[in-house]
């Protein structure tokens, strides 16, 4: 699976930043042109796009449920949740199975899973709480990696939100 692709990268990162504080590994995904990161400790699995069973009367961003090894898991469109245009399903589309503390496993539809990066505390910039409190905002920090910016998801915001 994609998780193993960037082992070399991880090793490099480790050596580079031993003294830069706590390090966290993030899975980097692509949504449109932007890159987003999710803490790898919250990821249960990454699966290919599959048939999603629609559940009636749900908000548009909740696409339905899938069968993951006998378990029924809700799938949501991160794009719709963030107010972006609807997902375009391609060969690269993946469902990220994310472990939420309260609600159990939930699937996120993403355009592409790119790599695993290690970010150090020093590379991460928190976004002020005024902006994060805004509805529909799921980002609470931005990480810098190799000169690129990665928006980091705030899973608490996803799980706490009244849906």
């Amino acid at each position: 699976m994609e998780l193993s692709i960037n082992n070399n990268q991880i090793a490099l990162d480790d050596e580079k930043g031993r003294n830069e504080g706590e390090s966290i590994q993030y899975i980097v995904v692509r949504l449109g042109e932007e890159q987003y990161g999710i803490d790898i400790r919250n990821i249960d699995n990454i699966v290919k796009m599959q048939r999603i069973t629609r559940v009636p009367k749900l908000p548009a961003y909740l696409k339905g449920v899938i069968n993951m090894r006998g378990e029924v898991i809700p799938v949501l469109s991160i794009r719709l949740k963030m107010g972006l245009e609807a997902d375009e399903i391609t060969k690269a589309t993946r469902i990220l199975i994310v472990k939420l503390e309260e609600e159990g496993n939930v699937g996120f539809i993403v355009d592409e899973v790119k790599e695993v990066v290690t970010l150090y505390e020093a590379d991460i910039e928190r976004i002020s709480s005024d902006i994060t409190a805004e509805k529909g905002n799921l980002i609470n920090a931005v990480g810098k990696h190799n000169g690129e910016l990665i928006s980091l998801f705030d899973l608490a915001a996803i799980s706490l939100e009244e849906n």
Partner: protein
Amino acid sequence: MDVSQYLEIFLDETNEHLTNLNTRIMELESDPENMDTINEIFRAAHSLKGMAGTMGFKRMQNLTHDMENVFSEVRNGVIKVTSEIIDVLFQCLDALEEYKDNIQGSADEGTNDNEPIIRMLNNILNEGKGGEAPAKKSPAKEAVPAQEGASGNKWDSVVLDDSQVNVIREAQKQGKRVYGLNVAVQESCILKAARAFLVFKAVEERGEIIVSDPSAQDVEDEKFDRDFTLIILSDAELDEIITSCEAVSEIDKVVGAEIDLANNKSAKVIADEEAEAAAEAAAAEEDASKEAEKTEPAAAPAAASTAASAAPAAPAAKAEPKKQAPAKPVVNRTVRVDIEKLDSLMNLVSELIIAKNSLVSVSSQEQTDVNSAFNEQIEYLESVTTNLHESVMKVRMVPIESVVTKFPRMIRDLSKKLDKKMELYMTGEETELDRTVVDQIGDPLMHLLRNSADHGLESAEVRAQRGKPAVGSIFLDAYQEGNTVVIEVRDDGNGIDVEAVKQKAIDRGIITVEQAANMPDKEIIDLLFLPSFSTAKKVTDVSGRGVGLDVVKSMIESLSGEVEVKSKLGEGSTWTIRLPLTLAIIQALMVVVGEEKYAISLGSIQTLEDVPASEVKLVQNKEVIHLRGTVIPLIRLNEVLDVERKPVNEENLIVVIVKKGDKQAGLVIDELIGQQEIVIKSLGKYIKQCKFISGATILGDGEIALILDANTLI
């Protein structure tokens, strides 16, 4: 030795005894002269005392001891049971309950001595005896059996080998006393081995066990009938040992005496022919049992019960060469199983059923060339999985009795507190439900009963005015109906005042005046289930704190059940709780709506109908059909579920008639797939806004079908 391993048994039995006491004392109140009840209470109190003592819970022991004293006097006719005594006794039970809870929580009984209660008990005793101080219960009468004829004693027929004989002789020479002891456990005793262990323990505190017949190992494995015999060395008095053994609960009788080796047949044989000891032992065994048979009927009357139990044992010993061949215990053998283990077993069964379903779907895909043997095997597999599922479900089923037995007592207390006369009538306590449901149904039921007692039943004056009997009636009925269990709480009280509810709802801003004017009574009554809606004019500590019905509703819904209420002003109300019999696997009808598959629980389906489109009529702008004399509203599932309808057969509608209580509705579907056993999976906490989807299931091909909750559609 450590008694903590018996803590669980102790708690279970304390529970049982307390429940029993509660019920019996209720009985006693209505029938104060009933000797059976009094005896039963006495026995239960006595057992509690014994158990608490053995486990080292002194405060609990003291309290039960005083309770027992009171009952002993009641039994002797010295004290008459009055309402005050009953009150005090109930306070005792509450205190004991508290001890039990403490022990359950921390393995410690706590520090509350409950002196006021003990004082009250002693007052009762003193009054009953005309000021006499409560006499200590004398253990003397229990020692009487020790006087029985020596030759009839069981320990004299115990087979001793020469080393044991030597030990006894040595001990007697040294001036130690050697006792024979026969301990009989009660016939109803379930954990004989545990009791025996406690007896062994009690004896070992005071002396040394030389011989046990049957052997200690057999006793531990419960390989004994009702009694066992010990030969012990001790410095203590015989009475003391006997008393300590009798303190163990469920011990029927302990008899004992000092041993005279001359009376022991096998010991004599050993003495006479020491050289042939080994060979003789076998013969002696037979002789001994013969002797037992001969002498037992002649034994003193005091030993009657011992003899009675020994009588069947003796012929058995003759028939088989081995003496310790106890009859299999007649009581049900049970094993305690962690509910989590059952859950995982249940999950495995679910998996198995899913796997079976996929086999079924594979076989139906290739109908043409699949051989019949394959189909046969699938059918076989199907019957096995169905049976397996049923057995696992049954293991989890328990009667609701354990929950409802505490209610009569609660109603009695409420009756006093609210100063209203009322009586609770219960039926169907034996109705069984899944363990997890039973564990959680107690609180909602309690709320409903309290509600009936407080809001439902009128005060005595109002009842008299209305020509109702002075004593209000509350009914709790449980029964099974198809795939559901129904529990009804009914009262003959005031019923729900729809106008009062309406006014309150308007005051609270829940509905507007205009809305209220157009709302049917039923919907207004349903407002009661909204959070923070309490119509009690007075806030009492019984109800009226604004928590209650909404909690009841949400608790029952969390068990996949539902609650509804019917009420007639002035005549009373009926609260009906419906709970699914099983939580995990159901029989369902698979249907197609648009392109999607849905499952409808077979339990809620009444019939399937083919209805010509021309027979659909409009009533108040809603579609209905006329079916065998009833008008049934139609629900077009494609509209409810936002599905595009396939332009199929417009002439005929396929209608699934579903029912909920006495209401019916017709669900219009596009296609029928058939009946299937499905495993219910939760949609997860993330999806909760879709009311009429109660879950999902995984089909044989891995696809997900949603389960329609027909109840919410009606």
